[in-house]
């Protein structure tokens, strides 16, 4: 159950990857902003924002690689976009058109699951099923801190451990399940809990996509090498309310909200790469153009 020790070099992203990380984060942010705007206009019925989760999502998804099958919860918009779900497809279900706007097979990104933690058992079952068919798929399943309290999550961890399933559990611990703080949801951490079931795990901060990328790369190497599960718990900040229907000011201190905003992973990483000279004004302008076009397309499609 020991983690294969890979040196930093083996898992640290190269410069191209770093730019890719930032670009995906910026695009996700742009889509999220547009979605929230459209929701305010009544075009979307609801939107669970992923602002604050971008580093965790982009870092983990890029580390997992394009061959992995992703079983999301309902907030993994940055993962969805990175996997090739178009922004239009992503928003479709929140406008009330469909339960799933994309082709899950084409992008190997499954439909969102609204019933918390139910997808964790699907992910493990899928991994077992693929292995039985001689196709050792690598499966990534996303779950929130609150959802880990559901029996299904524990059952999925036990099943994955017993079957030694090739599943990467990514827990995005944003400190809240709607209004319930994560400290009141558990006494330890999900990473510790996983070890109790016999699943190797790591807990990492989720502000820096490179840290996440490195941790998830190591996890992926472990899963591929040992053909055994791994759980990465990523601490992130939830910048907005649980969804657009949630007024987080009711239960969350303005200090806490301000601190979370100040620790924005997107601006933080943008500043860092800019400071390191990895990206310049022209690069940002290109991404901005891309985002503007996306936003225009979304408005055209839905507004």
């Amino acid at each position, binding site marked *: 159950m020991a983690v294969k020790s890979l040196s930093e070099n083996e898992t640290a992203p190269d410069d191209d990857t770093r730019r890719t990380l930032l670009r995906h984060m910026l695009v996700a942010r742009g889509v999220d902003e547009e979605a929230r705007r459209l929701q305010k206009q009544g075009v979307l019925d609801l939107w669970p924002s992923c602002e604050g989760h971008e580093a965790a999502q982009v870092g983990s998804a890029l580390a997992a690689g394009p061959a992995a099958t992703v079983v999301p919860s309902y907030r993994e918009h940055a993962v969805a976009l990175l996997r090739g779900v178009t922004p239009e497809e992503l928003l479709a279900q929140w406008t009330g058109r469909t*339960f799933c706007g994309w082709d899950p097979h084409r992008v190997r990104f499954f439909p969102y699951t609204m019933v918390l933690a139910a997808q964790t058992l699907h992910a493990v079952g899928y991994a077992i099923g693929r292995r039985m068919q001689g196709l050792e798929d690598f499966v990534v399943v996303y779950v929130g801190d609150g959802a880990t309290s559901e029996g299904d999550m524990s059952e999925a961890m036990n099943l994955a451990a017993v079957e030694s399933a090739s599943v990467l559990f990514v827990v995005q611990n944003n400190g809240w399940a709607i209004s319930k703080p994560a400290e009141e949801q558990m006494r330890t951490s999900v990473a510790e809990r996983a070890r109790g079931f016999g699943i190797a795990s790591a807990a990492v901060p989720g502000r820096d996509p490179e840290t996440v990328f490195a941790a998830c790369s190591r996890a992926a190497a472990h899963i591929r090498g040992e053909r055994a599960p791994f759980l990465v718990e990523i601490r992130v900040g939830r910048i907005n309310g649980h969804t657009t229907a949630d007024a987080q000011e009711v239960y969350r201190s303005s200090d806490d909200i301000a601190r979370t905003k100040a620790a924005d992973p997107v601006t933080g990483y943008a500043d860092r790469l800019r400071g390191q000279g990895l990206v310049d004004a022209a690069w940002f302008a290109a991404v901005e153009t891309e985002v503007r076009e996306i936003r225009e397309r979304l408005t055209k499609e839905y507004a």
Partner: protein
Amino acid sequence: MTGTVRSPCLAESINTALADLLDQDPRLVLIGEDIGRLGGVFRVTRGLRERFGADRVRDALLAESTIVGQAVGMAMSGLVPVCEIQFDGFTYPAVNQLVTQAARVGGRWNGRISPSLVVRIPTAGGFRGVEHHNDSNEALFARVPGISVACPSTGEDADQILRYAVALGSPVVVYEPIRLYWRRSSPPRSAEPARSPTAARVVRRGTDLTVATYGAITDEVLEAAHDLAPDVDVEVVDLRWVAPLDMDTVLESVGRTGRLLVVHEATKDVGIGAEIAASVAEYGHDALRGPVRRLAPDRRAYPPGDFEKDYMIGVREIRDEVLVMTK
């Protein structure tokens, strides 16, 4: 079309009733996801944590089996837990604890304890909710021995039902229609009180046809009835409880009108309407001037928001059905 009356809305009545009950009975405790700090995703419990403390208005772990399972233990310990499930569609993880445990505790203890345990469940659609947020699952528990199921359609009824439920000595599931929580005006109803806390209520007197219904759609039924008057004079029975069902009130009404239409928002098959229609077909056969009919969505999943209008039973469908039956 029809006049409406303004009254305290469902959420307010429930909030007041819960506050009263917490005040009167130290054994009462509320358990649910986000019911404390946030006051519930529908704000039904707002202010209660501040007033009664986090111990009695408990922000539950995010696990429905835990909510009901611990409530069973608490009830055994002498408390009266009033649980909230956040949306009807998330009831399922709690079904095992409700059906195989809560419903059977009294019998398993040979009547030595009779724990009261209430589960409040926001229900039904009509607000473009995302997947699983629009369910109407009252029939699920209505068939389970040992569980009572209430479906109030007004704040006044919800109040009476809650006060009755916390003292019943066996589990009660209360389905609260989401779209009524904050609705302030609704079609006028006859002032006749229910004969007992579990009785149905004749909310409109009429002579030509009885509509038996419950929950949010009672408003649409009343609106249709008003629209049809005076050509067709519809009597409307709001069942208020679907387990036990007050068949006496329904049969008496059918005895007067000779016709019965059952309307509900849950899908038709093996639903509450089936039970009522079957009972009336058997016990009210001689009074019937024509076949009992049911108006309810077909057996299919509640669709995405854009399609919910096609799915739901509206005032027009009710009117049309009554006209077909009385023509």
